[in-house]
């Protein structure tokens, strides 16, 4: 498996950001088939798209493949991109759909499913030891990260967009083509699920501490 390299820097852009006007120009050139212009768009957005895919799939190689698929689909579909929405909004919508497709594929691929289950069993065995180390500052983050991967995709995506990509309700609604009311409902349910898990963890920890 490919080692996951953490970055000590902020997410937004992997290269110096271009202005909105420059991006529009790059999109227009790319629509006409200019590959150099498209390469600049790729560089501009690949980190955010990759991180979205990685958090959706929790698997480095799959995230790599989905990111490539996303940009390829964007390239192919660019002539039909009307520019009603921002390029990034359109791109993230493609990325989300590609990630969903990958999750569907995973469901179909039984061999992989068995492998994932085996991985989860190993993770559960490790959980016992981890509880003792849970007093450390990163315990909550570890639980949240673990639980995030177990949430339904529709809840996972709103958490990723809201808290990892710091998007507004309006931006999320546009990307996911859902009404803002639905975005709120999904976001609130998702956070409540994680909150309940943290609550349960806190209660478990108290019982253990009292038992010692």
């Amino acid at each position, binding site marked *: 498996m490919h080692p996951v390299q*953490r970055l000590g820097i902020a997410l937004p852009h992997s290269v110096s950001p271009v202005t909105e006007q420059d991006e529009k120009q790059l999109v227009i050139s790319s629509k006409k088939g200019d590959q150099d212009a498209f390469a600049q768009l790729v560089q501009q957005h690949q980190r955010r798209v990759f991180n979205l895919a990685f958090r959706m799939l929790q698997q480095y190689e799959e995230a*790599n493949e989905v990111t*490539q698929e996303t940009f390829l689909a964007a390239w192919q579909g660019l002539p039909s991109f009307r520019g009603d929405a921002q390029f990034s909004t359109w791109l993230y919508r493609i990325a989300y759909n590609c990630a969903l497709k990958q999750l569907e594929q995973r469901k179909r691929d039984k061999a992989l499913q068995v492998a994932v289950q085996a991985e989860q069993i190993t993770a559960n065995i490790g959980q016992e030891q981890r509880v003792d180390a849970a007093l450390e500052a990163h315990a*909550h983050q570890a639980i949240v990260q673990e639980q995030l991967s177990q949430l339904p995709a529709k809840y996972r995506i709103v958490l990723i967009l809201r808290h990892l990509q710091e998007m507004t309700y309006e931006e999320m609604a546009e990307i996911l083509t859902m009404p803002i009311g639905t975005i709120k409902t999904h976001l609130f349910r998702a956070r409540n699920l994680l*909150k309940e898990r943290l609550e349960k963890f806190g209660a478990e920890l108290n019982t253990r501490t009292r038992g010692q």
Partner: protein
Amino acid sequence: MRCSAASKQLQLYIDKQLTVQQVRQLETHLTTCRTCQEDLLLLEKVASSLRELPPVAEPANLTIQIMQRVAMTPQKPRERYSLLRPSLLEALAVVLLATITTLGIIWQQPTLRAVLPFANGHDLISQAFANTLNMLINENMGTLMLALWVVGTLLGVCITLALAGNEMRTEWFKAMMDRLPVR
């Protein structure tokens, strides 16, 4: 403020979506309610834990890999008039539904109805139908018109969806499902 109202607002509070007035009310409630305080603390922990998940570096050669694939892939030409190119099945569905709708409209006009070789008021079927209709009109005109209006609207929606093509239909269906409050 009650806890049930406060717990809904807590989520909006951490997203900074409340008005100054609402924030004041909620904060007043929080000073006296321990349960809501704990809820807020946990929600903030959830948000901050997510926010602090470190970004992951994409593969170093990602751009090159993408551009290699791009170089081998032609762009799809812009689709024009896809609305006017329904499949055979879609076209048949539209014709069928449009026929039903047209017959419905013709049937409402006595002069047009007389032109038809059937249902013109002289054969048995149309007489039976007219009798039933008159009975319904006498019974409850409003309900009947409402029912006809609903049927007409449904036919219109079906025709539009049949013409719109598969992609639009899927998107429409998805949007409808997302709007359902409970699933």
